[in-house]
């Protein structure tokens, strides 16, 4: 099931071995590693092909998108000229990716990273965004091949490349300046494509640097060994971040990688956390469930904030909460399902016809139609986030308090309405159980905030409405025929999100109704340790999607809260073994093959892992013994 084996190598986090494999020209999603500078992200396949990069920001148009179209999407390959045995790892808990290729002729390593400037605005001229791919021959005389084919605007443009000086090539217009500096000689084989090969001797280094500037004069970065300083600065940034993560419980390597990934998905220019850096990776190969996840979903908010603040990452948590309250100003007191990284709401869904889709899974969608949906759980996400924020000693300002009261009043007046629910189903609206539970959690958070003096308001009306919601959930959410809390009032289908009810505090984990619900969900939605998110066919799609990664971790969370430490640990162990060799997770997993499905890497999955590990750690401490 696994893409490769986990090993530990010195200070470096994880390494693994595997031979590359592509199906119809597409690498398995689990074969990708992710690098980034917290403003944009690139996906690099195990075979050395950089197949996804949007510039300048994560939600801008792609320059390389072979991930979604192997021919037209564009790629930047730095790989071996011959068959190779490949190992890779992240360097010391950073996002610097080192891929080692062992061929018959020799061994070389490619170090991929996006520099993080240490100096800010006062630093010397530097490109706005940069990808560095440094090649170093370690043994023998390995052959290295480079194939550089940028295809801006999601593959719609085949650019004209112009030579600049000795070994630099530029693609420029009135808006963008994209510069490739290469220590390996390249020739233009066709319009917009450069190719080259080199045979290196042990100890030799070659650097390829890609620089981008938009709406300004381009920067030509220093060449030669100057990349070493940038690598060290970048490493220092990630090591400083790593040092602030306070966690010494089980599955520490996976937890740390999840936290690093969440930081990578945190857009530094605003504090927003995107759901994933990719768009339209299919939830079922060949199917149509292909969505753009390069936005910030409010539903993720409480999970993300909980992860940051519980791990001691106060700065990131505070930044994200400030973004939440700032972004939602535009629509307050109503909340939209998702916002752009800058808090905009114009994210209408549209199809990109220039790309065929991952393994011909079309359409490729940009934007997201869920923006116009009603998701009542979003209010719970914001208000429980405020509670987490305040519980960590942060103070809510007057304007923030005013907005929170506005959200709470919307919950009071609208919780009885049907909505599209957490899973954004595009059929008719329902009285989704999880949405009602989150409305309860929203008002419960408001009451607690009032009681703790963090929010100036009279809690009485919120108390009565909160209790009314709980009564509705306990009576109408419970389905006697199924012997479980079901996905929606009056419906028989199951939904794994109700496993979060104990975590939110509306019911005890060992309540017989929760115990029965878990048993039914595990039987009907379970595949080993994994869970599907809801019963088949509920969403109206014909294709069968995979198991939903976060739901498996919610099961661990539930078991840990119930005190079943052994079962929780075993389940966690099984789920962590499903991560790829770099400990990254996608949105879904094919339960039969173990292949990753959906957008990657997925923040929601990683918050699930962190939440489950924290619950497990607490349960272990409570039980007073290791499992």
């Amino acid at each position: 099931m696994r893409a490769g084996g986990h090993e530990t190598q010195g200070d470096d986090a994880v390494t693994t071995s595997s031979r590359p494999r592509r199906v119809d020209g597409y690498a398995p999603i689990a074969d990708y590693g992710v690098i980034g500078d917290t403003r944009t992200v690139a996906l690099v396949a195990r075979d050395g092909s950089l197949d996804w990069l949007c510039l300048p920001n994560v939600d801008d148009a792609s320059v390389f998108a072979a991930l979604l179209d192997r021919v037209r999407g564009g790629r930047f390959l730095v790989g071996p000229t011959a068959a190779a045995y490949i190992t890779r790892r992240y360097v010391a808990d950073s996002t610097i990716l080192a891929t080692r290729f062992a061929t018959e002729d020799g061994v070389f390593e490619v170090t991929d990273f996006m520099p993080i400037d240490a100096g800010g605005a006062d630093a010397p001229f530097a490109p706005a965004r940069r990808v560095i791919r440094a090649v170093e021959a370690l043994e023998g005389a390995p052959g290295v091949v480079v194939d550089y084919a940028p295809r801006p605007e999601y593959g719609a443009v085949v650019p004209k490349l112009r030579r600049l000086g000795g070994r630099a090539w530029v693609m420029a217009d009135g808006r963008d300046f994209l510069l490739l500096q290469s220590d390996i000689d390249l020739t233009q084989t066709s319009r917009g494509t450069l190719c080259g090969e080199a045979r290196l001797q042990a100890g030799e280094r070659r650097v390829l640097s890609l620089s981008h500037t938009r709406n300004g004069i381009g920067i030509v970065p220093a060449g030669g060994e100057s990349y070493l300083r940038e690598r060290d600065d970048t490493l220092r940034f990630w090591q400083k971040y790593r040092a602030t993560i306070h966690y010494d419980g089980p599955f520490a390597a996976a937890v740390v990688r999840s936290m690093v990934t969440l930081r990578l998905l945190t857009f530094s220019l605003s504090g927003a956390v995107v759901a994933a850096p990719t768009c339209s990776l299919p939830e079922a190969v060949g199917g149509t469930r292909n969505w753009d996840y390069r936005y910030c979903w409010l539903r993720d908010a409480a999970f993300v904030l909980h992860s940051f603040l519980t791990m001691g990452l106060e700065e990131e948590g505070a930044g994200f909460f400030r973004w939440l309250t700032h972004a939602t100003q535009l629509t307050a007191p109503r909340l939209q399902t998702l916002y752009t990284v800058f808090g905009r709401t114009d994210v209408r869904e549209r199809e990109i016809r220039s790309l065929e889709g991952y393994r011909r899974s079309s359409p490729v969608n940009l934007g997201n139609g869920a923006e116009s949906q009603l998701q009542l759980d979003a209010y719970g996400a914001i208000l429980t986030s405020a509670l987490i924020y305040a519980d960590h000693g942060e103070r809510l300002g007057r304007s923030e308090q005013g907005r929170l009261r506005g959200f709470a009043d919307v919950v009071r007046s609208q919780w009885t309405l049907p909505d599209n629910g957490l899973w954004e189903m595009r059929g008719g609206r329902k009285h989704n159980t999880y949405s009602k539970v989150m409305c309860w959690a929203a008002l419960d958070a408001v009451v607690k905030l009032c009681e703790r003096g963090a929010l100036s308001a009279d809690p009485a009306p919120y108390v009565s409405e909160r209790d009314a919601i709980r009564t509705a959930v306990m009576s109408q959410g419970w389905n006697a025929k199924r012997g479980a809390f079901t996905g929606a009032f009056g419906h028989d289908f199951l939904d794994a999100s109700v496993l979060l009810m104990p975590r939110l505090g509306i019911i005890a984990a060992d309540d017989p109704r929760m115990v029965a619900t878990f048993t039914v969900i595990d039987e009907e939605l379970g595949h080993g340790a994994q869970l599907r998110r809801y019963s088949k066919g509920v969403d109206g799609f014909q294709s069968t999607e995979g198991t939903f990664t976060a739901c498996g971790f919610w099961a661990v969370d539930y078991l840990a809260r119930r005190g079943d430490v052994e079962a929780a640990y075993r389940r966690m162990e099984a789920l962590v073994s499903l991560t790829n060799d770099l400990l990254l997770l996608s949105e879904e997993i094919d339960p039969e093959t173990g292949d990753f499905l959906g957008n990657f890497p997925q923040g929601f999955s990683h918050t699930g892992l962190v939440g489950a590990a924290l619950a497990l750690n607490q349960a272990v401490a409570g039980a007073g013994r290791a499992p």
Partner: protein
Amino acid sequence: MNVLATLGDHWFVVLVWGLVASAAMATLLEGVQLLGFSRMSLPFLFGAFLSQSRRKAIIIGYGLYLAGGWAFAFVYAILFESAHFAGWWFGPLVGMAHGLFLIAVFLPLLPFVHPRLATDYDGPDAISRLEPPGRFGLNYGRATPATTVLAQTLYGLIFGLGYQAATGGFAHV
């Protein structure tokens, strides 16, 4: 009357309308940049003469750009006074000639005098440099020559009209 003596009388007009014309020109050029027609920023290029910090270069550059706008306002005023003429077409004509000089002579020669500008012949270097403008500034986008000439023409138009109106025009026109 002596041209310089006249300028001495009108220095305040030159400063005010030089500032207005410079602001209009900067707004047009920034707008052109934001709309993706050209990546050229003259203030940044000027500032980069003195600093390799992006922030300082932009701040210093805008100061120099404003000072340059005033200096050229005096040059334009001398031209107007010498010709005893300003008006709606002479100012733009002078501005257009100024713009053509910028794109045909100034920008292509700039890499040879600018300490932080690369040339098309450079190889790898130990310090970061700025992308060279190329012929007519075309490296910064195809619309660069047109927008530069247009901006300078706008400068000439605004300054010419303002100067004429504020000084009461030229007696024989």
